[in-house]
């Protein structure tokens, strides 16, 4: 990386961190209960418990999930060489949700035999493991079936992802029928893509997984640049294409699996954020990947604050997944149309 590039990286990372700080501050200060920051810092209750005990961990959770999803989305777009690739659209989130669901239901079944064993299996780490495994398997399935004549066809992979999502939704509905009602309610809430109130240990497990997987992607970002040139070009420039791709698959899936285990299926973060950040910092993945992850964190914190505040008069809040889908669905279609237009213009 040369001097100007390094400066741009520092500026992009500083801006991303600033965005996170601003979003977390806004999320902590806005809410149904009027609280004072000064009172909270002075230890006055309930201000302190609300700000430090509730809003801050929730903002941290949203930031972790946004960080993971935007980072994974950027990497998947590089692999598929298509800006429409995204963990949710590609069915990676769906696979993770299925993996997590199976572990949760197994835990419910085990509880009937042995309460403590069921509780242990239903805790955060095993659910995260199931989600990561589900994400990895679905990524390999989608990218495997997206190959036609030995070549990865982005449109085919996207279509496989969409069909896989529908399949997973059906399987989860069937599995839900087998769960006891209170488990089914818990499952439904999780799957909707809601930033909830997780314990400190769950956040810690999630953070380790997310930072390791996005960190791995960060280390691979220079090679991602070469992969976007095409497999042959990358190989001729000395990249071990198969190994690199496998590692990127694995890390992006692990990040997605961790995000799903923490907050269910929050869609389109990996689509919206990398696209906007690409406009800001350009296509170099050494900049794009870390900047996307940081802005993804800020984006989801802000989206969660919006979800919390928008329906306040009704005394309820929608899951943040509904907000991101509300923004992301039209964005996806706009990107699709724009791609088609660029394609037409290139043809004429």
């Amino acid at each position: 990386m040369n001097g100007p590039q390094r400066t741009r990286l520092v500026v992009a990372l500083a801006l991303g961190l600033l965005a996170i700080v601003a979003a977390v501050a806004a999320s902590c200060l806005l809410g149904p209960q009027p609280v004072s920051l000064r009172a909270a810092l002075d230890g006055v209750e309930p201000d302190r418990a609300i700000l430090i005990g509730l809003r801050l961990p929730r903002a941290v959770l949203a930031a972790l999930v946004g960080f993971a999803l935007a980072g994974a989305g950027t990497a998947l777009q590089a692999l598929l060489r298509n800006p429409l690739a995204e963990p949710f659209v590609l069915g990676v989130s769906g696979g993770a949700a299925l993996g997590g669901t199976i572990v949760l239901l197994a835990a419910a079944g085990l509880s009937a035999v042995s309460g403590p064993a069921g509780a242990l299996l239903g805790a955060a780490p095993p659910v995260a493991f199931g989600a990561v495994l589900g994400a990895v398997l679905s990524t390999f399935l989608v990218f495997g079936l997206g190959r036609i004549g030995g070549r990865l066809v982005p449109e085919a992979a996207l279509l496989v992802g969409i069909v896989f999502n529908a399949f997973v939704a059906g399987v989860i509905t069937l599995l839900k029928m087998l769960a006891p009602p209170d488990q089914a309610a818990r499952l439904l809430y999780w799957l909707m893509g809601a930033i909830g109130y997780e314990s400190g240990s769950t956040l810690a497990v999630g953070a380790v997984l997310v930072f390791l997987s996005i960190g791995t992607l960060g280390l691979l970002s220079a090679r991602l640049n070469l992969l976007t040139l095409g497999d042959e070009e990358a190989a001729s420039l000395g990249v071990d294409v198969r190994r690199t791709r496998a590692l990127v698959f694995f890390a992006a899936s692990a990040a997605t699996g961790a995000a799903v285990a923490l907050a269910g299926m929050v869609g389109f973060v990996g689509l919206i954020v990398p696209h906007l950040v690409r406009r800001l910092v350009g296509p170099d993945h050494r900049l794009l990947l870390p900047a996307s992850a940081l802005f993804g964190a800020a984006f989801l914190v802000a989206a969660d604050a919006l979800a919390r505040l928008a329906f306040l008069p009704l005394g309820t809040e929608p899951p943040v997944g509904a907000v991101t889908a509300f923004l992301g669905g039209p964005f996806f279609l706009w990107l699709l149309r724009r791609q088609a237009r660029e394609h037409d213009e290139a043809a004429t």
Partner: protein
Amino acid sequence: MRAARATLAFAALLVSLVSAPAGAGDLLPVSARGAAAGGATWVGTPPPGGAKRIVTLAPSMTDYLVALGAAGRIVGVTRVDHAPEVADRPRVGGFLDPSPEAVLGLKPDLVLWVTDGGALSAVRKLAELSAGRFAILAIPVITVADVPAAAKLVGEALGDPAGGAALATRLQGSLDRLKAQASGRPRRRVLFVVGRDPLVVAGPGSFPDELLRLAGCDNAVGGSRAWPVYPLELAVASNPDLVIDAAFDEPAAGISRLAAIPAVRRGDVARLPRDDLLRAGPRMIEALGDLEQALARSPAGATPPAGAPPR
């Protein structure tokens, strides 16, 4: 090779994370035992001299406080709570999605919760933040026997154990009456409907199922699920003697949607006037009266049994 090694290291880390201890869930262990079998849990110590500022996270808990004359101590309820005594109280979110922030904002000294999987993570968060501020009483109401047991627990939390015990005795008395009256009635198969489109019924393990058995009836619904979405065909084939229509949100005339069930065609349908039979709490006393009336109905065309109240 480096990539393969990194992948392996990553997998090893995942496995080690899996074997990590379960963590903060231990603050609020949710028991599979009901309140009658000692399954209730206190987080923190009960407020000395009885709770004065109480948030209830379930309408049935509000009912207990109202029945014990403590409605004035309630400072917050869920938005699904329609008891007139708490119409002006602040709302703290829903039954399945209570807002910990709204609860904290009310500065309670006691939070009453009927253990339910949907609200578990929010209440666990409250439990983490409750230390030194307020207590949480988590009451699992799973079987009919837990209803009087919960009355005792709530009475003790209020500093009114005698009131709680008296309410428990009244609740137990209404259950004993239901059992006693069962002996004078022919055994009947009952289909208990709570939703018509889709058809949702009370199955084995549900609260109405247990009450029906106490009342000397057979539930027409088999299987293993408490609240199944039930195939209409199975409902027809089960050929119940009586259909109890507890779909309160839907107009009474809508039962004609189920006309394929012979009992509905014959008019052997008893509509419950309120949702009290589904609320496992003090309203059970009136609710059991409604159930008695419904079961005392004679089959269409037959002579009413002696002593049956007119409908």
